[in-house]
């Protein structure tokens, strides 16, 4: 990894952070509505892992999807416009925060029924295998989603069929207000579940963007070369409530404070500077360009048009 690679990882993490802060602000102002789940705290996971994918690879994720979308390079204009419900949004204002799509970038959603994205993702992997293409499907989900039957059914299918899929578990230790201790039957890590289906698994520190990137690269390479599915568990934390409606009374602020000390958006630039990879000024330049991009995105979303009423019945069928 050279200087540009480091700065690029930082740029994406900072972009997600600012994007999410802006979402929170615009939600309070009423420009964004519905359910809004922020990715603040988990930036290193999406950025590190998606950096190890190729353009031909598929990404399928859940409703907490802004981070994955930005890391994949979806336009911040199109994303912010979607959240504002505008016709220029990535889903033409019809999907909203939980249902982001960009098929040109093989970004196959944004799915808001917990666990529903997993069988769908297996289908993309099946298509790659069927066509003898060497693309990989990356499916993101949370600790809470491991309780759904779809997770277990899909792991078994993927294992039996040796599908080129990576199950990417973002363990942020809470599914809404439910801590993982309360839903893990054996008190052990989720990797045990994968082992039960003959799927190899790896745990990585989800607050360390380079570790996430390297681990993912290693795993994706194996999956790409036809070894069947794999699972990666990244341990991470969402610094805010589950959604904008959640005051997060079920956890101690000291727990949040502990995790905030590992904030990748703070610690990674510190590391870059102290290791003499890039200068403070270069970090500041990145920040400035990200801030400009975000201002432009909000302006674009604000100035874009609402979808016209005819579009209501468009795209129900082809």
């Amino acid at each position, binding site marked *: 990894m050279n200087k540009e690679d480091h700065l690029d990882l930082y740029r994406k993490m900072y972009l997600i952070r600012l994007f999410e802060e802006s979402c929170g602000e615009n939600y309070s102002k009423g420009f964004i*509505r519905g359910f809004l789940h922020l990715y603040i705290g988990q930036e290193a996971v999406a950025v590190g892992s998606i950096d190890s994918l190729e353009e031909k690879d598929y990404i399928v994720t859940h409703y907490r999807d802004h981070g994955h979308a930005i890391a994949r390079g979806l336009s911040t204009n199109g994303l912010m416009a979607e959240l504002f419900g505008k016709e220029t949004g990535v889903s033409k*204002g019809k999907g909203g925060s939980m249902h982001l799509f960009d098929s040109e970038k093989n970004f196959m959603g944004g799915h808001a*029924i917990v*666990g529903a994205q997993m069988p769908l993702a297996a289908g993309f992997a099946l298509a790659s295998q069927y066509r003898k293409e060497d693309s990989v499907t990356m499916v993101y989900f949370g600790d809470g989603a491991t309780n759904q039957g779809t997770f277990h059914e899909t792991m078994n299918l993927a294992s039996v069929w040796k599908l080129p899929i990576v199950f990417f578990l973002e363990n942020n230790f809470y599914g809404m207000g*439910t801590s993982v201790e309360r839903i893990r039957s054996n008190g052990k890590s989720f990797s045990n579940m994968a082992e039960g289906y003959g799927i190899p698994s790896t745990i990585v520190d989800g607050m360390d963007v380079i570790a996430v990137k390297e681990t993912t690269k290693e795993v994706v390479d194996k999956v790409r070369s036809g070894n069947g599915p794999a699972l990666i568990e990244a341990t991470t934390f969402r610094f805010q409530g589950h959604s904008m409606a959640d005051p997060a009374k079920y956890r101690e602020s000291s727990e949040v404070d502990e995790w905030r000390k590992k904030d990748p958006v703070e610690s990674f630039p510190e590391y870059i500077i102290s290791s003499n990879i890039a200068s403070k000024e270069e970090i500041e330049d990145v920040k400035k360009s990200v801030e400009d991009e975000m201002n432009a995105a909000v302006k674009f979303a604000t100035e874009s048009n609402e979808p016209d009423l005819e579009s209501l019945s468009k795209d129900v069928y082809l």
Partner: protein
Amino acid sequence: MAEITLRQALQKGLSEAIENDPDVFIMGEDIGAYGGAYAITSGFLEKYGPDRIKDTPISEAGFIGAGIGSAAAGLKPIVELMSISFSLVGFDQIVNMAANIRYMSGGQINVPMVIRAPTGAGMQLGATHSQSFETWLCEVPGLKVVAPSNPKDALGLLRSSIKDPNPVIFAESAGLYGTKGEVSEEYYEIEIGKAEIKQEGTDITLISYGHGIPMINKVSEELAKKNVSSEIIDLRSLSPIDYDLINNSVQKTGRALLLDTARKNGGVMAEIATNINEDSGDYLDGPILRVGSEDVPWPYNRKLEQHAMSSVPKIMNKIEQGYSL
């Protein structure tokens, strides 16, 4: 009489059931430590403990099914879903098991269970979170389906749903949780299968349920300005449906407008329209009118969502065209 919100009415009914019947327990996702996605069970865990207020993992098929089994074993589970849209994940258990088990066992096994779920669009939650599957569940024999529109009915229907020996789907309009209304302090129940005439009238019968009722009330006010007197029926139960009350009213007024807040196509109002046609066809002064939500997946954009929903102008238009009123 006290004025309370629909949320408080549900809280009263649930607390009462927990306190009076040791077989009653509540389970669902984040109903305990979190206090419920819509804060219906807020404070319950602290008050009644984890045996009565059971937090579940995100496993709808699993815990709905376990609810059915525990009911079959004689308990009285109340299962809360975060959204009726998520009932789909447990649909097999609800339909194949809860609804069928009594019949296919030749009457040996009952499922005295209540499944409560918020329903309805209007909050910009998009296609996967805004649906109204109470109308699908009406098709299933063996299930009862109720949908209160106000605090009084919510409490009365909840009491009879918990007592009922059959599985009952209790559809709560998410937009109505904060609605206030008078609720008697004396104990009462509302029988499942009984609709209510909310307002007597002579020229047209307006029929709806749940969050369709506030809209119907406004339509009635608009009609009154034109000297049209409307009779308002709140169905309260969607299965079984109170056809006697409906037909009596339509035979008196000779006109009917049915408002569904779910999608129009295949909704419960299609069923009611057919029944009116068969039983009161001779009394009608014109076609039975039906308004429902547009037959599209729910959009996120506010303008589109509002446009997909029924509205007072849409209903007024329909009435003007249908009956030249």
